[in-house]
């Protein structure tokens, strides 16, 4: 359009085309400002709004516990005889050692007075809790395929504190399922636990990928 106009105007560049040029500049600048705002809302504000935080009922130090037990993770996160996986241990497992306070910390006092003495289960929030339609066999992965806990759960066993539990306000699912990165880009195998992550590994290893392998 501007080329045609230039031809019509002939040789002289008058003041009207000058102001048009500057208003184009403003337009482009406005576009980028708007684009920047949109990106900022999408990548910074929206994730903040989308996820809500909850505190675990107690803090837990995985690394100290890992030092005292004999069989590593499986000492507390064990398999039952029928092949099912116990997941997060129940109070009885804690009470085996924590019948009486093991130290002076305030967390220890809470554990004893709030849970051990009244024999009340600790309402842990589970980071890796999958939707109801998902079936996952720990036996198949840990016993048959010999995959380490770390491959999916990360180095939880070496942590001193529990991370803040975040969940999606719309779906109610833990943030660890989608992963910390909003773009979904993975750096480590444990960064997210979506269906795609399961399917990708199954494909790579030539494992059956039929729907009913992981769905119930």
């Amino acid at each position, binding site marked *: 359009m501007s080329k045609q106009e230039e031809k019509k105007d002939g040789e002289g560049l008058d003041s009207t085309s000058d102001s048009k040029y500057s208003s184009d500049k403003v337009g482009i600048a406005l576009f980028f400002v708007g684009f920047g705002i949109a990106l900022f809302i999408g990548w910074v504000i929206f994730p903040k709004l989308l996820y809500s935080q909850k505190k675990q009922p107690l803090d837990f130090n995985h690394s100290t516990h890992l030092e005292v037990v004999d069989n590593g993770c499986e000492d507390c996160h064990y398999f039952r005889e029928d*092949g099912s996986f116990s997941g997060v241990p129940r109070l009885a497992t804690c009470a085996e050692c924590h019948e009486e306070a093991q130290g002076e910390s305030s967390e220890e006092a809470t554990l004893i007075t709030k849970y051990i003495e009244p024999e009340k289960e600790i309402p842990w929030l589970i980071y890796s809790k999958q939707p109801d339609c998902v079936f996952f066999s720990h036996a198949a992965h840990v016993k*048959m395929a010999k995959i380490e806990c770390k491959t999916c759960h990360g180095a939880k066993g070496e942590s001193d504190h529990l991370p803040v539990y975040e969940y999606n306000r719309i779906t109610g699912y833990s943030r660890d399922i989608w992963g910390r990165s909003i773009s979904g880009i993975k750096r480590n195998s444990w960064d997210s636990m979506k269906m795609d992550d399961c399917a990708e590994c199954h494909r790579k290893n030539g494992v*059956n990928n*039929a*729907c009913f392998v992981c769905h119930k």
Partner: protein
Amino acid sequence: MKEAYKETTRYGMVIDLDKCTGCGTCMVACMAENNISFKEDETNKLDSITWMRVYKITNGRPYPNTEICYIPRPCMHCEGSHGHPAPCVSVCPATATDQDPKTGIVSQIYTRCFGCRYCMAACPYHARYFNWWDPVWPGEMEKYLNPDVSPRMRGVVEKCSFCHHRLQRAKNKAYLEGRREIREDEYIPACAQACPANAITFGDLNNPEHKVYKLKKSPYAFRLLERLGTNPKVYYLSRKGWVRRAADN
């Protein structure tokens, strides 16, 4: 191709109609096992969800020659023929249903289904059901739900899964013991387990050591609507000619 098919497991069922008394225990067991909810008024059977349904047929002759036969009908888990999958699998636009190549079981994934009901139209056995309402369990009945089966929401189709979660459970145990093979008695659907007349036999149709392998070769064995080429994995047994003819082969 044919050899490969023979090497894999094909779970299937053989139902002896001469043993079936039509008591309906299989239906009750199925509903309890698979978290099937109910309505306040169940008189409209067109709305009822019955993964396993007992049909009644008669030979249509007057007394004293009247004979009755009850036909329990789960999902047939059609194998398909000539390279075509089961009717429901081939029509699903959402890939919400597929056939597991390793077991032959036809799945239904509720979270993937968007409720177009094309599969229901395609299924010649009426084995698929639509959830017109969200399921409701009165009072504390929710505590009785089977944790291994996910409840369905309004607007999706559901059907018999051969109690696939029981296979998953059996596999878990086998893996813990370092086995990959599942024994015949380790995986049985709820209906087969509950049948008081032992009319339902379940196992691997391709494994000569399983009971179903021999039973399906009986001269009295037949399948429903075989001529359609759906190649069902549920076989029926009956010594009565009129019953076999009623299967419309």
